[in-house]
């Protein structure tokens, strides 16, 4: 189900941990399937000098976080801002379609960490609500877990195979 690259990062995730003196922290939780991710960054000369993560989630979510930290480390903030979830998935040699939607949050969490850093630096309070990836990130679409057909936002069942995602009870 997962690529070799995903399994490699899952088995030996890079840059795991917290950072007590972090310059920016980005925290993102996804209510759809319960994945949660926290990214810590240390910034020196407008570059990401150090980066750490913690993740609660499936194999894909852990691999995504690990790969993201590898991509972002050493990049300037301007470069880091351009990193997308799609880049992370591509670096992992792809993710199962239904995981693109729920587990591929790394780049979003990084953007939040950068925003946190910039807000602290400018002395202005950070915007309160983190972006919901389902509202703000339309790069990845939602796919039916059974037949892989694209399911548009807002539709609660797959028109192709009639799979409905509302689980029991039957009434």
């Amino acid at each position, binding site marked *: 189900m997962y690529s070799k690259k995903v399994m490699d990062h*899952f088995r030996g995730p890079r840059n795991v*941990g917290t950072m007590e003196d972090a310059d920016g922290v980005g*925290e993102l939780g996804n209510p759809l*399937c*319960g994945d949660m991710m926290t990214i810590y960054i240390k910034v020196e000369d407008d570059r990401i000098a150090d980066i750490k993560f913690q993740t*609660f989630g499936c194999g*894909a979510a852990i691999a995504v976080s690990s790969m993201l930290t590898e991509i972002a480390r050493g990049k300037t903030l301007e470069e880091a801002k351009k990193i997308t979830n799609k880049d992370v998935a591509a670096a992992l040699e792809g993710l199962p379609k239904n995981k693109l939607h729920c587990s591929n949050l790394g780049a979003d969490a990084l953007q939040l960490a950068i925003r946190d850093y910039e807000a602290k630096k400018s002395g202005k309070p950070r915007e309160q609500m983190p972006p919901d990836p389902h509202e703000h990130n339309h790069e990845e679409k939602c796919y039916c*877990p059974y037949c892989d057909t694209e399911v548009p936002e807002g539709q609660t069942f797959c028109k192709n195979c009639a799979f409905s995602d509302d689980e*029991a009870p039957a009434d």
Partner: protein
Amino acid sequence: MDLVYLDHMSLNPILPEVRKAMADALNQEWGNPSSQHRLGEKAAEAIANARQSVADLIGARFPREVVFTSCGTESVNQAIKGTAWARQDKGNHIVTTNIEHNAVIRSLRRLKQMGFSVTSVPVDKLGRVNPATVARAIRPETILVSVMHANNEIGTIEPVEEIARVCREKKVPLHVDAVDSMGHVPINVEELGADLVSFAANPFYGPTGVGGLYIRRGTTVWPLLDGGVQENRNRAGTENLLGIIGMGAAAAAASRDLEKRMAHARSLRDLLLAKLPEYVEEFVVNGDPDNCLPYLASVSVRHLEGESVMLMLDEEGVEVSTRSACASGSLRASHVLLSTGMEFADAQGTLVVTFGPGNTEADVFRFLETLGSAVKTLLEISPLYKK
């Protein structure tokens, strides 16, 4: 690397004696069981013998109350849809529970599309259905109650006898989904009081591709498959002779070995739960400790997500199942665990360990050691865990 297989709920091995019965059958000549010549008669006799073995296992009074199907799902579909269609002149309401298998849930959802209505009753923290709640849910237009015998995720065995008494009083037929308990705990359809009982061969070490439906004499159920007069007109289509022979052999073995099987499984389950605190700090054991499947242990490891634990165990050659949303395909947390009132995050860390006849105490310790180190690694990654 030696594999430790602890996912018998997903697929069971076929017993050697079952394999032998099927291989012998494969090497013989057969006719169609419906034909009256001698090769046909021979096939009909083989099926009759298998039917008798299954009837003995489930305590059916008449072998013809046993109908062979293609799987547990088909049995459930026929019990539910077949009853709804046969009794639609009497009403359109069906009662079920919140923790049923998808075969039940989706059969009922299909019936709802056709105009039937469904009431699903809740369960308590242990996953138990209260018979009084079922009684209250039954209306004059109720034509069927469907309750599972043992839950496939948490192992809770439901008070089916009491629910059957309620149903008999109210004159509503009762369907019991016994797919995961048949051959593992004593089931006697007469004592159970059910009118319809669904089961399958693989859960008691028979082949996949064959199941059974008990239809109490006098209960009217329409077939799902229309055609010939096979299976006493309850299921058309030429019989799966090899599968049925295998199911018969597996049923005979289950009747003979039931006590031994239960004792073996229970000893492994007890060992696992007794030793678990030495390997994992924070966890919840799901289900009803006093009424549970002997071969199943459902454990939710706190602060972790089950798929990552399952994958890490697999890396070390230990195979279990998880009920986390991420691994389910549907990306939803288990409706069974949520129905017991479990927190979403805890439900995410649920592992289901199911033992089989080949498992040993050494397997339990290998699981525990592997789990202990996987949990340690993953807790370091988890933002939910605070030391």
